[in-house]
């Protein structure tokens, strides 16, 4: 385990030494997100298609056995040969046998991740066949013997000049370092290969049971040529790609390119059923569809990984993953890269291979928010982390972070001493070695009195409460900043609420982040057991920390199998500013005017209004607030960035640099964020004060201003 971790640390350190490579990749990722955003804005119904995709995939995976049989029968009825392969070796053997029987010499391939998954090229080449990738990106990486860096853009890490050099060297030709010159050379090189290939090999984006067709989506047009010209066509398709109807397929045909490249749809969509003749030729033209299992049937029976089968291979999750943007798809991946690469690698290439890069996930959860099939990726990844930890145990630093609540209890009890320790470099060096907490991170001071201790002494100012609110306080406002908790109480009371503080534990999100799902479920069950009776009596639940609200609304139901109680809690849980906007009286005093604030959205706010409510709440009070964002995580990833070493603060800071630079260049005087941990990252990365919105109000009233740590 340590060896594996050291290997990963070394790879991360290497990436940190060449930040320009990461910056180029991040530019491409941004381009991908921007085109997706534009396409979705133009789509009737906007993001509504995601729920539809999820419903289609859920339904078709549940009916998989039936649909595989139906697809097989209808494809055969149209003249296709359909063969089931239990694993990669069986699929490769089938193709080798076919090539031998047909006396084939050349195989022209169009892009197929499934053939990458089973690494089909090498054994075919060893058997004496000439195998040529014809998708531009795949061809580039084939020429340099690399693996895909990205699901959709396999050569996204190669800059134009490098690509020109690769073709110059491989084809022994002069190639100018500009894209049109490269295109000319590629077209000339591949044309005879298209025309003379004996076998054309493709993947398929979809199999349609209704009419036995395979659907191939391409932009370059190579998929069309490869599936048309050679007399023998082979398609390797994972069984999870089969849907029932043409209507379902049409939805996916849009969802896929919208999410990956912002197109509606790809330039070419080929619905191919059976094998048509070519001209008046009488050659025996065949199509062979290989339906690949390779672990998929087992995945379907595995509740922890099943949802990964809903992946439609759009690559959007890697366009938004902040650590992927720093280290790239060779470090963050085996053959399947990026966030979805973690569960897929675990399922088809083994837990060991997945464990090589799983710690790169910092559980920001943005992949869940961008996924067109609404796959709960953070939860699938937590499952993989959990399985790895069951074999290998947890790293010291991960254990520390999972025990944050306990440390905070101790820190708060010993507050004056603990706070001196936090500021003492020697003590911090010892903490770094013993606990894995980075020695240079400025940690928040502890409060001698916790919110839980202070709250009972508070007298409600509401004579006639119109509603009841249970406050979910979480770690930071309880142990570090009870003043923010009290400000929340004041605001809720001003909105006519009676505030209760039921018995509760911290949200437990770190257990999900570091993969202890047993303890995550315990925390969820504990809080749900205490909050559900209140929710069922009509009491609302309000959280200050975005991650805590995310747990109540999304993570707990997922952890508890969607139990009735967890759903009751989720339905009545709110992030505080949404709640205040709905219930506070009109006409707030205009007392925050005159300063320019930047607003940072924490990742866990993305499914809950993306911070718009907090911004509106501030604007109602006259504040000038502008959103500053890159669309990805600030790199803190909860407490990930507090850990010592490259797989902690090193990677975290590199991931956040793009955002911090944008903030520094914006000219704002201060930042506002609802997340306590994002605030730490932004303070260090920008040198600006960072406030919680509730703090600003106290500031306006002339009370002590914080924005940093006392």
């Amino acid at each position, binding site marked *: 385990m340590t060896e594996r971790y050291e290997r990963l640390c070394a790879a991360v350190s290497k990436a940190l030494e060449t930040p320009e490579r990461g910056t180029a990749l991040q*530019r*491409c990722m941004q381009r991908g997100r921007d085109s997706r955003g534009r396409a979705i804005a133009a789509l*009737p119904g906007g993001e509504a298609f995601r729920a539809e995709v999820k419903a289609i995939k859920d339904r078709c995976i549940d009916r998989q056995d039936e649909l595989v049989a139906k697809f097989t029968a209808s494809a055969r*009825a*149209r*003249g296709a040969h359909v063969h089931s392969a239990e694993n990669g070796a069986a699929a490769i053997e089938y193709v080798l046998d076919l090539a031998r029987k047909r006396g084939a010499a050349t195989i022209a391939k169009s892009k197929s991740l499934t053939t990458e998954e089973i690494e089909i090229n090498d054994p075919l080449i060893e058997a004496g066949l000439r195998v040529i990738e014809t998708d*531009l*990106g795949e061809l*580039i990486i084939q020429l340099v013997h690399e693996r895909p860096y990205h699901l959709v*853009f*396999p*050569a*996204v890490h190669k*800059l*134009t000049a490098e690509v020109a050099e690769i073709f110059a060297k491989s084809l022994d030709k002069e190639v100018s370092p500009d*894209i049109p010159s*490269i*295109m000319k050379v*590629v*077209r000339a090189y*591949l*044309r005879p290969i*298209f*025309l003379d290939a004996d076998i054309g090999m493709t993947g398929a984006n979809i199999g349609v049971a209704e*009419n036995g*067709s395979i659907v191939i989506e391409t*932009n*370059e*047009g*190579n998929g*069309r*040529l490869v599936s*048309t*010209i050679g007399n023998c066509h082979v398609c390797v398709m994972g069984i999870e790609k089969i849907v029932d*109807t*043409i209507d379902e397929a*049409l*939805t996916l*045909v*849009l969802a896929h390119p919208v999410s990956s*490249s912002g197109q*509606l*749809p*790809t*330039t*070419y*969509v*080929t*619905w*191919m*059923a*059976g*094998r*048509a*003749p*070519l*001209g*008046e*030729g009488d050659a025996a*033209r065949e199509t062979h569809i290989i339906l690949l299992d390779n672990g998929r049937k087992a995945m379907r029976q595995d509740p922890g990984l099943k949802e990964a089968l809903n992946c439609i291979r759009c690559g959007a999750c890697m366009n938004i993953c902040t650590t992927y943007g720093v280290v790239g798809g060779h470090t963050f991946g085996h053959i399947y890269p990026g966030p979805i690469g973690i569960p897929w690698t675990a399922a088809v290439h083994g837990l060991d291979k997945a464990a090589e890069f799983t710690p790169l996930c910092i559980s920001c959860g943005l992949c869940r928010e961008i996924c067109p099939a609404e796959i709960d990726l953070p939860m699938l990844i937590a499952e993989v982390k959990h399985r790895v930890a069951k074999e290998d145990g947890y790293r010291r630093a991960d254990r520390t972070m999972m025990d944050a609540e306990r440390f905070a209890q101790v820190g708060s009890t010993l507050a004056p001493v603990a706070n001196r320790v936090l500021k003492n470099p020697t003590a911090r060096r010892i903490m770094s070695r013993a606990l894995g907490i980075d020695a240079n991170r400025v940690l928040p001071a502890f409060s001698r009195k916790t919110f839980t201790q202070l709250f009972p002494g508070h007298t409600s100012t509401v004579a006639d409460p119109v509603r009841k609110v249970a406050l979910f306080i979480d770690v930071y406002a309880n142990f570090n900043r009870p003043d923010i908790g009290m400000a929340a109480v004041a605001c809720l009371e001003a909105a006519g609420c009676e505030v209760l503080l039921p018995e509760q534990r911290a949200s437990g999100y770190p257990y999900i982040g570091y993969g202890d799902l047993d303890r995550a479920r315990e925390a969820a069950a504990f809080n749900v057991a205490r909050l559900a009776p209140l929710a069922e009596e009509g009491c609302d639940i309000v959280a200050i920390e975005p991650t805590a609200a995310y747990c109540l609304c999304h993570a707990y139901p997922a952890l508890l199998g969607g139990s009735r109680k967890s759903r009751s809690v989720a339905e009545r849980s709110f992030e505080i500013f949404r709640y205040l906007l709905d219930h506070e009286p009109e006409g707030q005093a205009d007392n925050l005017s005159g300063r320019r604030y930047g607003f940072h959205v924490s990742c866990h706010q993305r499914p809950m209004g993306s911070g718009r409510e907090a911004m509106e709440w501030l604007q109602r009070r006259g504040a000038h607030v502008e959103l500053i964002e890159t669309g990805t995580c600030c790199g803190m990833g909860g407490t990930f960035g507090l850990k010592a070493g490259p797989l902690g603060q090193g990677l975290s800071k590199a991931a956040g640099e793009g955002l911090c630079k944008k903030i520094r260049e914006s000219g704002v005087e201060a930042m506002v964020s609802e997340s306590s941990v994002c605030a730490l990252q932004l303070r260090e990365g920008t040198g600006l004060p960072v406030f919680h919105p509730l703090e600003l109000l106290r500031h306006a009233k002339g009370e002590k201003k914080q924005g940093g740590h006392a």
Partner: protein
Amino acid sequence: MNDTVIASFTKRYESLGGQVRVAVSTESAALAAVEIVRERGGTRVAVAGLDEPLAEAFERALAGAGVEVLREPFTGVKLPHGIDECQAGITGAVFGIAQSGTLAEVATNDAVRLVSGLPRTHIGVVKASEIVERFEDAAPRLRAIFSEHSGACTVSFISGPSRTGDIELILTMGVHGPEAAYVIVLDDAEGRDSQ
């Protein structure tokens, strides 16, 4: 009705880097094709998947302009090489989709696919009355095509010229397929000559 759907199809198709010409008769459609082939410097053109009166009109007009025309069933043409040697390919689309700027081409012989896939210029021909508005409207059309042809059958959706973003996600046209893509919309509305 036709005007609105033609306008939205045109807007979308041209935003994808293609060009649309509207013709009100078979003859003017054929002339539009001749004009495009001339502009693109074509001397040999392959034609496939067009209805008989259209195919004949196109052949007549192109031959009249000195362009060599290869036609189905491509007797005596070496495939696929013969089609690859054409500078332009003209195919008929069974229907179009305005929302996505898409032509749907049906092939029960793969030569049709080569005509729209190999040459550097592709000209698709679609009747305005066959353009559906929304992407999902394609479902019943596809279902009908696949029931009509119960054996081997391929439907190709084509939305503009061949493109790639594989180098730095920068959009580039014409990598393997046509770099120039045209659509001739035959406006066959009532009262207009569609014969």
